[in-house]
């Protein structure tokens, strides 16, 4: 994660249209969405051109490499260089990063008000009883939690 990144330091101030120095997360999102606009696998030079001025070629390659570590892009060799393909969209990348934040912070419950907290030993039985009482059909949720029945529903849903 903490690889040498010339990304933030080597970036010039840019035109006045860009009010503040872009954060690392913002930059990754921009590169990823630029790559997503490509009809097929794209080279780093194509991404750089697509993003417009302000970003050095090495910066783009660094960010693409970082995205690859996060599983957001894949690459394959084409001749002497690599071509890159997006494997996730911006929301997918954010999900990856969010997951890592949630897993690394031990005391997050003191900060982020979680929708539900962990259930105690008897809570599950009690909760099912309450829901069954309320709704005779019962919760359609399976006891094992049914992993993996989530086709990726992407943004734009409300």
């Amino acid at each position, binding site marked *: 994660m903490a690889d040498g990144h010339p990304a933030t330091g080597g970036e010039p101030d840019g035109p006045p249209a860009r009010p503040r120095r872009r954060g690392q997360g913002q930059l990754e999102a921009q590169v990823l969405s630029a790559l997503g606009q490509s009809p097929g696998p794209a080279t780093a030079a194509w991404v750089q051109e697509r993003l417009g001025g302000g970003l050095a070629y090495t910066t783009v390659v660094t960010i693409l490499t970082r995205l690859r570590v996060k599983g957001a892009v894949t690459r394959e060799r084409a001749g002497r260089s690599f071509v890159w393909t997006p494997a996730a969209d911006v929301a997918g990348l954010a999900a990856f990063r969010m997951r890592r*934040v949630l897993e690394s912070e031990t*005391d997050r419950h003191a900060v*982020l008000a979680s929708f539900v907290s962990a259930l105690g030993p008897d809570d599950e039985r009690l909760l*099912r009883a309450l829901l069954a009482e309320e709704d005779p059909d019962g919760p359609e949720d399976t006891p094992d939690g049914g992993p993996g029945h989530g086709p990726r529903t992407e943004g734009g849903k409300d």
Partner: protein
Amino acid sequence: MGVFVLLPLVLPLTAWPMARLAAVHLAPRRATRLLTAVAVVLAVSSTLCLALLMVVGTAQLPGNPLPDAWSDPAVRAAVPFEDVAGRAAIPALLAVAWACAHALWCHHRLRRRATRALAGVPGRARLALLPDELPYAYALPGRPGRIVVSSGLLTRLDIRERRALIAHERAHLTGHHHRYLLAVQLAARAHPFLRPLRTTVSFTTERWADEDAARAVGDRRAVARAIGKAALAGQGRTSPAVTLPALAAPGPVPRRVAALLGPVPADRRWPPPASAAGLAAWAAAAGTAVSALSAVNAAVTLLLVLKAATAL
């Protein structure tokens, strides 16, 4: 100042009955505000007294940076047990300072990292929907605050429950619940006796958001179902989070669901004086007032004694 300086160190105990009963007998919004205020006053008082004890205690250590007159016999006479209490206050105060600084630092780091994780995610109405099978939903405070929901949670809810979930998280943001949570977190770090208040406030903020959501969507049962389903969906997955030790009473989630399936709680200003909750509320109020007065009294006394001794 006599033994008064030690009172604020034990008076947080008077808030315990209140911490147990407020969640049931007061409307969530009032319970949150009252308990947070009580916790903050008690924490500030006890920390102030620790600092006063430390001033006198440190004055006796050789090589301390304080003026010599601070270890004047008159000053020592003003503080009881200055030998033991003064020396014990130094590590205690350091521990409090470190714990509070650490809590603040963690709070800001988590907010910063979570905000950075969401960078570039488009979202209407501040909602960031993340494709993740792990069911979770968070209100991320900030300017503007954002609501983070995983698709794993959303696919398990029907349309009414989804609306309830979003309304719940929005209530967290508009009510600035993170400020109450941070305040009681810091208070609990300042004095371990205040931990039950933190537990209660983290429960009452959820109840507060539940009630606001129920009002917003006009359907208490939808909110209850959303909470129940979300909790059951999260079962069976190992959560790395610190969980509360299992209590004999039902956990917070079933209590929230049960409260939502019941009637709207009465928004009374203060529990009836003859009830257990009323007694607990008065005990907490009295304890808080005495604690604050003792701390102020001790501070003023010490100031006067020092002024007389050192001719400031």
